Structure formats: C-alpha cells, structure tokens
C-alpha cells in the first residue's frame, strides 16, 4: 500500500530525515517510535505532502506521490490525522466532522458517515453543536480521530495520539484505536511512548535522528533490553 524509499527531507539547511525506508502492506499495522524531535512527525508530513522531499520516492497504492499537493494525496485515500489535532476552532463539532468527508464521494454519504462516527464517539454526538474551541484536550483528540474516520481511508496515519493528554484519557483514546485496528484498516501510527503500543500486534520502526535504526515486531523490541530501557515509560 505504501512504500517509502530513501526518503530525505530538510527544513532549510537542517536535515530531518535521511535515507528512510518504510513499507506498509495492506491491512498492516505499523508503528514508528523514537524520541521527540527526531523526525517522526516530519515523516508523516512528508508522506502526506505537507513537507517537500529533498530526495527519495514515496509510492502509494502503486503510484508515485512525492511532490504532489497534499489535497491530491488526500483524495487518493490517504488520511493523515495530524499532531496537535488542528481543529477548525470556530466551527462546531459537527461542521468539523462533516468537512472530514469533503471529497465528493464521501460528501454524498456524509450523513451516514456522521452517524457512524457518532456511534464510535458518543461524546462527540453530545457536543455536536459546540464550537471546537470549547472542547477539552481529550475531546479534541476524539474530534481529530472522528474527522479522520469520516472517509474510507486506504491508509490511515495517526500522529502521536497520546500527546498532551492525561493517562486516563490516553487509555480511552487507545481503546478507540483498538477498535479502529480491529476493522482491518491499514494503519501507520507514530507514538513517542512505546508502552502504549506494546500490546498491539504490529511492526515497529525505531526512528532516531531521522534514520531508521531498528525494525521488528513488537515482541522483538520488547525483548531488546537497550530499547526498553530507553523508551519504556518515557
């Protein structure tokens, strides 16, 4: 579904990603972990087109997408739920969600999709007429996830779902993520705190200083003492 080869990206003269290789097969669940500021978010942003690449190729569903505009990439079925949620703060929850179904094919069935999302996140249904500005951190996170689910994604990318949330809320969020995983969707998740994903049946990539330094199944990494010492519970 997604193939990334030798991806390089930079901000001005600062290199952020170097020679990153990554694949996500259809139906797979891949997690990217690593310390903050080492390129995980940039990786997702480069794939979704918000950040230009300086070298390398990105292939999605059989076609090259590097260099394309984010809106075109999104229309291909790549859904990126960004770090920090980025809600439309002056719009209501419902308006935010509805916009998640912007592409013409999704827009036609937006009422259905809306009900489905409200089913997954009853909390959002309760707050549907409230402005996004008034939502708490956890609620915003749900909104971001819900917005991303308004479309049928061929690949869903979630960036740091636990960021800035209290542990109780993080658990809730990850319960929803479990539900999402259970649907069989192809998922690429970025997470700083490895402990949240250790129960999943996923492939893990460790990104440090913009490079992939370790790759393996969750179980492999759990067995690696050095990795655990550094990342468990960070």
């Amino acid at each position: 579904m997604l193939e990334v080869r030798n991806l390089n990206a930079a901000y001005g003269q600062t290199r952020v990603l170097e020679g990153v290789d990554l694949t996500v097969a259809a139906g797979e669940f891949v997690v990217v972990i690593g310390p903050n500021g080492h390129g995980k978010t940039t990786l997702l942003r480069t794939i979704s087109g918000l950040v230009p690449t300086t070298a390398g190729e990105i292939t999605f569903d059989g076609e090259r997408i590097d260099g394309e505009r984010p809106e075109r990439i999104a229309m291909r079925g790549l859904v990126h739920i960004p770090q920090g949620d980025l809600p439309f703060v002056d719009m209501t929850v419902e308006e935010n969600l509805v916009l998640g179904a912007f592409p013409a094919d999704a827009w036609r069935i937006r009422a259905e999709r809306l009900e489905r999302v409200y089913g997954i996140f009853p909390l959002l249904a309760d707050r549907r007429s409230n402005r996004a500005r008034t939502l708490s951190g956890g609620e915003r996170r749900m909104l971001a996830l819900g917005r991303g689910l308004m479309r049928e994604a061929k690949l869903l990318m979630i960036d740091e779902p636990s960021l800035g949330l209290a542990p109780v809320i993080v658990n809730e969020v990850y319960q929803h993520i479990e539900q999402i995983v259970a649907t069989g969707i192809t998922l690429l998740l970025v997470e700083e705190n490895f402990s949240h994903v250790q129960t999943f049946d996923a492939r893990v990539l460790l990104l440090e200083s913009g490079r992939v330094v370790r790759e393996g199944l969750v179980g492999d990494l759990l067995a690696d003492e050095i990795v655990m010492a550094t990342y468990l519970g960070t």
Partner: protein
Amino acid sequence: MKGVAARGNLVDDLGWRRPNPVGVAAVITLAAVLPIMWPNDYVIDVGLTALIWMILNQSWNLQLGIGGIWNFGQLAIFAIGAYSSALVSIHWGVPGWLAMLIGGLGAALASLIIAIPVLRLRGIYASLLTFSFAEVVRLLVISDQSGVTGGTFGLSGVPDLAFGGLTPDARQRAYYWLALALVVATAVVIYVFIHSPLGASLKALRDSPGYAAARGVSPMRMQVITFSTAAFIAGIAGGFYAHYFGVVSPSVMGLAPMALFVTMLVIGGLGTFAGPMVGTALIMVVSEYLRDYQEARLIILGLILLVTVVVAPRGLVPALQDARARVQRWMSEDESPIDAETSTGSETGETSESPVSSSKGER
C-alpha cells in the same frame, strides 16, 4: 560574542552591500555635469525633481530596509516638512537654509506621533496605521479653512533660497547641484547610520527579536531614532521642494503620488543603497517618456509595478545582486550540493500553498 567580526557579518548580511566606489564616483560625476552637457531648462527641471524624490525615497528606504516598516505616512511627513519650511519663510522671513532645517525638524517631530504606536503593531497593521495617518493629515489640510495651510489650494509665494543675484539659468543650476549634494549627503548619512552599532542593532531587532532583547537592545529607542532620522531627511527634502517650486499643496500627498513613489522604491529594490536612486531614475525616465500619453502612462506604470512585485518582489537591484551572486557561486568549484540548494535568493516555494509560510518562521 565575537565582537567586531560578528557585527561586520551582520551588517553585510543586511543586503545593503557596499556600493562600488568607482561606480558611485562615476555616477555622481555624470549627474553633476548633466546641466552643463544638456543645458535644457526642462531637462534640468526633471532632473531636479528626480533628485528631490531620491532624497525622499532614501529616507523611506531607511525605514523600510532597516526598520522593516512600510511607512505610507512618509509623504505626509514630507509635506509637513514642506509646509513648515514654507510657513516660516513666508510669515517670518526666515532665510531659506534655516527654513529647510526647520522643515526637517518639524517633520521629525511629526514622525514621533506615529513612531511609538507603529512600533507596537505587526507589519500590515503598522503600515495601515501610517496610511491612516497620511490620510488624516491630507484630509485635515484640504478642509482647512483658516488660511494657515491654504486648504486645497496650498501655499504659494515661498521665497527662494538666498543664492544671491543669479540669472534664472544659473539659479536653476545652483538648485540642481544643491539637490545633488543633498542626495549624496543623505546617502552618506544612511551609510554611516547602517554601519554604526545602531544599524547592527536594528538589523538584529528586525530579524531575531529574541536575540536582540537578550542583548539589551531597546526596540523603542531604535525605532524612534530611525523614524525621526528618516523623517528629518524627508522634511529637508520637503523644505527644498517648497523653496524650489515656490508652492506647496496637498496634491503632493494622496494615493496617486504615493503609488508613484511605491513604484520607484519597489522597482529599485528594498533595503539597498542604490535601490532608491535606480528606481527613482528609471521611473522618472519612463514617466517622462510617456508624458504625451496621459492615460496610458499610469496604466503602464501600474503594470510595471505589478510585474516587478510579482516577478522580483524585492526589487530590481536585489534581484540583480542575487543573480550575480548565484552566477559567482555556480562558477566557483568547491560546491556542496546542499549549500547550493539553499541559496537566499527569491526562489519560488515548493509545495507550500500557505501565504504566510516559511518567510516568517525561518528566522
């Protein structure tokens, strides 16, 4: 940190590259002999007008290139200088030279009114504030019925600068060379200003406010000094204008003249020494060439502004400087691909569709 070396780098980095002394000398010489080589009254008059605008535009450029502020009120300040100079001359018989100085001071004082508020606002808001200031001044003058400013008709009968008994031709040349001297003097003042610690502080303030604050640079004081210096220069230009033409009226303010000066500045290039001169000269030439085609003139000038802003937003002179720098870099051997990629030229953006993107955040 590293003292003089660091400061030197900051200043060169300003974009105000040192003008080539030989080139400058040549241009000044050419300008000086113009009245002799081409003794046509009309031509000299146009040249004189161009010189006055050059003084004004340099002052504007100072605020822009160093202060980073588009001060649309500069014309009003110029006018205030002109009016004050004219008034003291007419009513109190103050000799021309002193009157011009008074014009400069009056303008500087007036600029203080907006210097401080402008400081507190961001880019576009600051510019709009100056724009409003200019409009208020203009409208107040137009509706003035007390006779002080002469209202819409303005003031006339401003006495000559005391050149003594000269023939009209000689008088005109005297004005011309005085104007030229003022243009050069202004350039020198600005040069000194920029290469002083003051100039380096201002540049630091504009580009990295956090760093500047940490070094104890007071934004308020810097801005006020820049503003009033630039205003003083504009005021002198205004005073000169009043005495040469003998009249001052509100028509010198307003959208149309402002458009003309904006064009001169943008074409010439922002934040360079030669910019204002080149821009003023070019536009005056084009404007004169099109004098017979009244309507087409402004259309063409507008188009020139549009095309320049869109193609080379920082102006012709910086664009040429960049081009030259890029050619030089391309020609030099030892080139790492990464360094070549990230040149500071006016390159078009990549996939960014955000209007306010990297240019602000990058520093």
